[in-house]
C-alpha cells in the first residue's frame, strides 16, 4: 500500500467553454452572466426560439408591460452577445468525459457537432399541465384551464365577454400547488373581480402565500369582491361544469353554485425529458423529476457532479427573482470552477494502483460524482482529481483494494485507530464522517458534554470510506465496541456513502453473530454536525450496553 501525501499539488489544464442547455429565461440569464465573465458559451435550445416554451410569460409570472420589455431585452442581448453561440432546435445527443473536460455532441436538425466544454449549466423549462381530469371535467367553452383564461384576459374583448358573469376557480385539490401557481390564480382573480358585474368565487385548499407580496395580492382580490371558500375536500362538480356543490362551513349546509365559467388549476411540473438528460449527464434527480437531488449540500445550484450546475425550473418551480438568483449564483460557481483554465489540485487525491486494477469498473459504477473514467489504450480506471471529492466509496468497494485516498489511506487510518486505542475502558472506536458526526463529536467535547472515557473518534472523509476490514480489525485488535456514525438519509455529501456504510455494518454484524459474538458491539447511527447533545446521548448509551456485555472476548 502506498502512503500518499495530500500536500503535493499538480496543475491541470481544463476546458473553459461552457454549455448551457435550455434557452428559457433561466438559461438565457445564466448564459448572459457567464459570457459577461469572459467565457465562451454555447446556448442550446430544443425549440425554435429562445425565451422558453411558455407562450405567455407575462401572465405566467404576472409581469407588467415594462417588466415584459426587460425580459425581451434580456433575450435580445444574449442573441447579440459576441461570446454566446445560440443554437435553436438543438438537443444533446451524447455526453462524455469528466468535469473540466466534457465532450458534448449536439444535434441541430440534420447537423451534428462535437464540442469540448469545461462546465455545463442545465436550464430545463417546466411544463404546464391542466388538471381538469382531477375534477372529472373536460375543457370546453364553460370549463377552461388557467392558461386559457390568461389568453382570454389578454384579449381586449375580455371585459365584454366576462362582464356580468359568474366565474369559479378550482385550486389546490388536484395538486398541492405552490406560490407560483397561486400567484397566477390571484392575479387573474383580481383582474376578473375588477370587471363590472363579474362575480368571482375561488374554491381553494391551502392558499400558498409563502412568496413576496402574495398575501397582499390575496387581499386585493378579496377587497375587489372575490370570495374565497377554503375547503379541505374538493367540492362536487357536475361533469358538464354547470353546478358546483360544496359544504358551506358557516351555514353548515350544502350549497349549489351555477357558474358561467369554471377555471381549473394548472400544475407546473418538471420537464418530462429531464430523465434522459439526467442519464446523459449522470446527475441525480429528486422524486419529482427535477435535476437535483433533495440534499442540502446541493443548494442552490450544485449537482452531484463537479462542473454541472442546475438553474431555474431544472431544480424546482420558481418565480423570476429566484431565477435571477440562480443564474447569478451559477455564474459565480462557474467562475470558481473554471477560473482561468488552470486548476491546482492535490496530487494524490485518489490513486489507482494499476498493478492491482483488473478493470472491473466497480469504481466507475459506485462513484457518486462521475469522477472515474478510462482511456481505451490502458484499460485501467482513472480518477479525475478535478471531479473527485475524496469520499472514498470506490476505495472501500474496490474488490482488488487498488484505490487509496490521500490523507485517508488504509495504512494511515488503521495506524490511527490501532495506535491510539484510548486508555479508558470500555474502549469504543467511533468512525465519524467528517461532515457530520465528527463535527457533532467535537461540539460535544468542547461544550463539556459527558462522553465515554474510552472513546476514540476516527475521522473519515465519508462513512462510505469505512471498510468492512476496518470494523473487524478494530474489534479484533482491542475495541470493545465500534460505531459507524454518518449523515442522515438524504444528507450525504456523496449521496450514498451513508447507505454503503449501513450495508457494511449489517454485513459485519452478521459475521459477528455467525462467529458467536454479540451484534450490539457494533452500531450504525446517523447524526448531523449540529447534534452534539445527541452524540453524547448515543455514545453514553453505547457505553452502557458494552458494560452490560463486558469487555470484548475478541481481544488477542
Amino acid at each position, binding site marked *: 500500500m502506498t502512503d500518499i501525501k495530500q500536500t503535493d499539488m499538480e496543475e491541470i489544464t481544463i476546458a473553459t467553454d461552457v454549455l448551457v442547455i435550455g434557452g428559457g429565461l433561466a438559461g438565457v440569464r445564466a448564459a448572459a452572466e457567464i459570457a459577461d465573465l469572459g467565457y465562451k458559451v454555447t446556448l442550446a435550445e430544443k425549440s425554435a426560439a429562445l425565451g422558453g416554451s411558455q407562450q405567455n410569460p407575462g401572465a405566467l409570472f404576472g409581469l407588467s408591460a415594462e417588466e415584459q420589455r426587460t425580459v425581451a431585452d434580456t433575450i435580445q442581448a444574449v442573441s447579440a452577445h459576441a461570446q454566446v453561440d445560440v443554437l435553436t432546435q438543438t438537443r444533446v445527443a451524447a455526453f462524455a468525459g469528466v468535469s473540466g473536460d466534457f465532450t458534448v455532441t449536439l444535434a441541430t436538425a440534420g447537423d451534428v457537432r462535437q464540442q469540448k466544454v469545461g462546465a455545463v449549466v442545465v436550464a430545463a423549462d417546466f411544463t404546464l399541465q391542466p388538471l381538469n381530469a382531477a375534477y372529472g371535467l373536460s375543457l370546453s367553452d364553460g370549463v377552461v384551464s388557467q392558461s386559457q383564461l390568461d389568453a382570454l384576459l389578454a384579449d381586449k374583448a375580455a371585459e365584454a365577454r366576462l362582464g356580468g358573469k359568474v366565474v369559479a376557480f378550482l385550486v389546490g385539490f388536484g395538486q398541492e400547488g405552490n406560490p407560483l401557481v397561486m400567484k397566477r390564480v390571484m392575479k387573474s382573480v383580481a383582474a376578473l373581480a375588477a370587471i363590472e358585474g363579474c362575480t368571482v368565487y375561488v374554491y381553494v385548499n391551502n392558499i400558498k402565500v409563502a412568496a413576496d407580496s402574495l398575501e397582499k395580492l390575496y387581499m386585493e382580490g378579496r377587497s375587489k369582491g372575490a370570495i374565497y371558500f377554503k375547503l379541505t375536500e374538493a367540492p362536487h362538480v357536475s361533469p358538464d361544469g354547470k353546478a358546483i356543490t360544496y359544504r358551506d362551513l358557516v351555514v353548515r349546509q350544502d350549497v349549489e353554485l351555477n357558474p358561467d365559467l369554471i377555471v381549473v388549476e394548472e400544475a407546473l411540473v418538471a420537464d418530462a425529458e429531464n430523465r434522459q438528460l439526467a442519464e446523459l449527464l449522470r446527475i441525480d434527480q429528486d422524486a419529482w423529476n427535477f435535476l437535483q437531488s433533495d440534499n442540502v449540500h446541493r443548494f442552490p445550484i450544485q449537482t452531484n457532479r463537479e462542473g454541472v450546475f442546475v438553474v431555474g425550473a431544472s431544480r424546482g418551480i420558481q418565480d*423570476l427573482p429566484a431565477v435571477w*438568483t440562480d443564474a447569478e449564483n451559477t455564474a459565480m460557481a462557474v467562475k470558481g470552477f473554471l477560473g482561468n483554465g488552470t486548476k491546482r489540485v492535490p496530487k494524490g487525491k485518489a490513486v489507482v494502483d494499476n498493478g492491482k486494477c483488473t478493470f472491473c469498473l466497480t469504481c466507475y459504477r459506485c462513484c457518486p460524482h462521475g469522477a472515474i473514467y478510462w482511456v481505451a489504450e490502458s484499460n485501467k480506471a482513472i480518477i479525475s482529481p478535478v471531479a473527485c471529492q475524496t469520499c472514498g466509496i470506490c476505495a472501500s468497494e474496490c474488490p482488488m483494494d487498488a484505490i487509496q485516498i490521500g490523507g485517508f489511506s488504509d495504512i494511515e487510518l488503521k495506524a490511527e485507530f490501532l495506535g491510539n486505542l484510548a486508555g479508558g475502558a470500555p474502549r469504543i472506536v467511533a468512525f465519524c464522517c467528517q*461532515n457530520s458526526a465528527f463535527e457533532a463529536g467535537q461540539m460535544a467535547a468542547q461544550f463539556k458534554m*459527558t462522553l465515554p472515557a474510552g472513546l476514540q473518534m476516527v475521522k473519515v472523509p465519508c462513512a462510505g470510506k469505512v471498510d468492512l476490514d476496518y470494523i473487524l480489525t478494530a474489534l479484533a485488535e482491542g475495541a470493545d465496541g465500534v460505531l459507524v456514525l454518518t449523515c442522515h438519509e438524504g444528507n450525504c455529501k456523496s449521496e450514498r456513502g451513508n447507505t454503503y456504510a449501513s450495508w457494511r455494518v449489517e454485513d459485519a454484524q452478521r459475521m459477528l453473530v455467525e462467529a458467536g459474538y454479540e451484534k450490539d458491539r457494533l452500531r450504525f447511527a446517523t447524526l448531523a454536525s449540529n447534534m452534539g447533545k445527541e452524540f453524547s446521548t448515543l455514545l453514553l448509551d453505547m457505553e452502557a450496553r458494552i458494560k452490560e456485555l463486558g469487555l470484548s472476548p475478541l481481544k488477542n
Partner: protein
Amino acid sequence: MSADPKKVMVIGGGIAGLTAAWELSKCGVAVDLVEKSDHLGGHAIQYCCKATEECRQCGACSVEKMLKNVVEAPNINVHCGVEVGRVARNGGFEVGLQASSVAAPAVAPGCDQRYESNPLACAAARKFSKNNAALDCGRAPADLTVDAIILASGFAPFDATRKGTYNYGKLPNVVTGLELERGVRANGRVLRPSDGQAPAKVAFIQCVGSRDERLGNLWCSHVCCPYALRVSELMKHHNPEIEITVFYMDIQNTGNNFPAFYEKCKQDLQFVRNIPVDVYPMENDRLRMRYTTESDGTPVDAEFDMVVLSIGIMPGLDNQRIATLLEIGLDADGFFQSAERFNRTATANNGIFLAGTVGGPKTIAASMAHAGQAAYEAMKYLGGAE
C-alpha cells in the same frame, strides 16, 4: 491579484452574512464582517436538526458549515459585539463602528465542568456553536474603509407578548418556535419548560404575528409551517405516542418533496383549520384552548402540556436607523426595499446590496442563495475584483 485587494463590509453575521462573506472571500475579496451580538450564525445557528431517519432539508446544519468556513477564512475579519455607527461616502465608504447595544448573555456557572448542569444556559454561553469559541467580541476597531457594503442584518422574531391572550411570558409552557428549536438543540429533544418532562400533548398555533390584518402584518413568514411540521415529525419520531395538533389557516410548502411529506404529516398529526384565541392555565401547568371543528362546528375544549407559538419573521428593530445611515429605503412593511424587480439584491444606493431576510421573509436555503447573488453583484460592482 492586485496589490491592493478590494474590500467589502458585510453587516450581519447570520446565515446570509456568513454566506456573502464566504463567497466574497473565495473570490479573493477581503471582508469585514460586522456582527452586533457576541456570536456568529444569527438566529439560524440556534435552530435544531430536524432529521428523523431521514434529512428533512431544513438547512440548520449548513449554518454550522458556513460558520466554520468563515472563521477559518484568512481574509474575513470578524468584528462582533459592535455595530455600524457612521457611514460616509467618498468613492468607497468610510465606516465608523461603535459598541453594540446588544447585551452579552450572562456567563452560566458550572458549564465549564458539566454541560448537563444547565444545557440551555450552557449552549447560549458557548455561543451555540463550537465554531464561535475563538471569537473575541466587543472591541471596535478604528474606522473601516471599504469599497462596497452588503447589508445582511436579518430579521426580528415576532414579539409574542403582543398577542396578549396567548399569555406568552406568563405561562411557562407557552413557548415560541424559536425557543422550541433552541430547546431541542440543547437537550436533544423537546422538554416542557415547567418541569423538564417530555410532553404528551402539544399544540402548535401557526401564523402568530404573520398574515395578521389587525397588526398590519400582511405577509407570510415562509418558515413557520416548515419548522412546525418538521419539529412535529421529529417529536413523533422520538415518541410515537405523542399527540400533536396544528392549528392553521393554510399550510405552506417545505420544498420540492412537500406533497409526500405533507401526506405523512396528515397521518401523524391532527390538523385543525382554526386559530384559537386564548390560552388558559390549568393544573400542573397544563394549558387549555377552545376551538371549533371544521366539519360541523362543534366547540372543543382541549388541554395540552405545551403550546408552541409559530412566530414569524418581522423587520429588524434597527432597520430605520440602518436605512438612514446607508441612505436606502424601506418598503411599506419595514423590510429593505429592493430597487429592481428581478434582482432583489439591488438598492437605490449604488455599491450597497441586500442579502437574506433584510428584504423580506426567507428560508435558510433562500437566504443563502440570495446572499450568493449579493456577493456576485458586489463583485460585478467592484469590476470583477481579483
